[in-house]
């Protein structure tokens, strides 16, 4: 778990460096969200459950099994990028083999998809659960309401995870909704909503575990709200200094989930400074290797732009 969290952080840092070097036109950092992403994703069963993430979910897809190499193939828009073959902006995740459903840029459109997938699972009496992640801004969209409402009516095996970082790009939560907790809205859909500290990976894991058990038991959806913070801009093209006071960001950094979890592991004596540094260097080495290999991978050919508008036969 710590390894995945740290990988996500170091991968973000490396990707941002590539962006500043001019080698990656666009990146979406997850910094600050690692605990709620990994904590919730850790409950999901690979090869069984279905992942419906949104674009900030770099750590979710790492937990789902995507490799740093695959992620860098997307960042550099290479032909073998598993998400889209370089067709989408980076971080628009999709991985058929890992059951990560392809996502788009419009906000909350994936919510009804999650409900529909969960409906099909229930209809066929399969033992699978859908995990669906989104930000606080998504909760204002009609599709969010329509998806949760349908999931509630049919008591579907789906878990809705809100990574509430308190800003939809620049718009603060107070201008997004008149309630303190997104989770309170669950009542309107007839299923439980819970609030957890999104910087506490184990709390996120615990809430997700309960929701997962509920889903598998046929008791229906759960809405989990993870209160967290985004340390960087919305994307590499965003300057958050125009809307967030620096002291607020600095204050939030005191609860950096990577640091918080690292400290916890030290108090439990499963990690020490030497071990942490060794792990960091090992991951950094893996990321550097993945990055270099992805940079050298083939670009898509121009003519390939014409392909896959419609079905072309089984591969």
């Amino acid at each position: 778990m710590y390894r995945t969290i740290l990988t996500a952080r170091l991968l973000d840092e490396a990707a941002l460096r590539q962006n500043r070097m001019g080698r990656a036109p666009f990146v979406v950092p997850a910094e600050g969200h690692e605990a709620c992403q990994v904590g919730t994703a850790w409950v999901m069963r690979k090869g069984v459950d279905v992942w419906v993430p949104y674009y900030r979910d770099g750590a979710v897809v790492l937990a789902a099994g995507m490799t740093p190499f695959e992620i860098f193939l997307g960042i550099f828009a290479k032909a073998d990028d598993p998400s889209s073959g370089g067709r989408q902006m980076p971080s628009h995740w999709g991985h058929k083999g890992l059951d990560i459903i392809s996502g788009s840029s419009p906000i909350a459109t994936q919510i009804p998809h999650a409900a529909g997938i969960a409906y099909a699972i229930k209809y066929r009496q399969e033992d699978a659960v859908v995990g669906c992640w989104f930000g606080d801004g998504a909760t204002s969209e009609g599709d969010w309401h329509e998806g949760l409402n349908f999931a509630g009516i049919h008591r579907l095996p789906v878990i809705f995870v809100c990574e509430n970082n308190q800003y939809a790009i620049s718009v603060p939560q107070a201008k997004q909704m008149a309630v303190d907790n997104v989770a309170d809205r669950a009542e309107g859909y007839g299923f439980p909503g819970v609030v957890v500290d999104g910087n506490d990976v184990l709390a996120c894991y615990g809430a997700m575990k309960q929701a997962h058990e509920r889903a598998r038991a046929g008791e229906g959806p759960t809405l989990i709200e993870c209160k967290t913070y985004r340390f960087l801009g919305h994307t590499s093209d965003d300057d958050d200094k125009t809307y967030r006071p620096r002291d607020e960001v600095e204050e939030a950094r005191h609860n950096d989930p990577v640091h918080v979890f690292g400290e916890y592991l030290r108090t439990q004596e499963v990690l020490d400074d030497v071990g942490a540094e060794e792990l960091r260097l090992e991951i950094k080495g893996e990321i550097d290797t993945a990055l270099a290999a992805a940079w050298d991978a083939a670009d898509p050919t121009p003519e390939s732009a014409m392909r896959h508008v419609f079905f072309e036969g089984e591969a």
Partner: protein
Amino acid sequence: MSEKNVVTAIRDALHDEMAADDRVILLGEDVGNRGGVFRISAGWMEEFGEDRVIDTPLAESGIVGVAIGMALRGLLPVAEIQFADFIHPAFDQIVSEAARLRYRSNGAFGCPLVIRAPCGGGIHGALYHSQSIEAFYAHVPGIKVVMPSTPADAAGMLRSALRDPDPVLFLEHKKTYRAVKGEVPDGSYEIPIGPADVKREGTDLTCVSYGYSLHTCLDAAARLQEDEGISIEVVDVRTISPLDTETIVASVRKTAKAIVVYEDNRSFGAGAEIVATIAEEAMFDLDAPIVRVGAPDIPAMPFATPLEHFFMEPEPDQIYRRMRDLAHH
């Protein structure tokens, strides 16, 4: 063979598909208890179960979005939009999601989804039960847009739509539902999505149309044959996108004259694309300028009978007259 109207042909075909394959799911507003406002699914909730004939909440984007999810998990959903006029909230789900899933995943994911929507006017449906929506979606790569106009085509193309691995917007012109009858072959035959169909052969001019307008054109062509011996070839587009330009251009090359007729607003409608195609590919075969007949550019359609008639046909018997003028050009 048996004679049916369009709505019965659609009902029977969809019923047989649901009976044959439990992956086929019908979802929409009032499709269950009520059996659909056009009674297409009357009794099906009892027959197939509430989990296969789903009365959804009144939320069109959600209907399409949920259906996309079902398709992603191996079901074959048929999402019914009660009236095409109400499809607009689902535009994002259709255009950004269903139509792009395959392209954006480089072929990894597909979306075998059928969206059924009764469209068109001339039935006192006023501004929000009469619209033509085909042009919005025909413009979008990744989704097929069809509008069959005869009972045999409707049944055969619905089967093809259900077996298509990509999303299909299946438009049903409401005025054809009960007004148009015809022979329907027995068995689960298919009419492929794509090819246009020459509904009437002729030599003097080509008329290209679809939807209810097709029947107005067929009627005018029959009368002109009788009245003046003018021989008109009538091409039924059937699949609006992707458009069968080959059949259209071949017919125009043969007759050397073309008239394109559609019910939608004239400007930027599907007819404009057809006219442009003829102009590009058959300009030097033409003996007269192409004629385009569409509705005036006012919202479809005002309610009062004289206003609705004006929308459908601004001049009395205009298609007959425009065809005759073109033939004499």
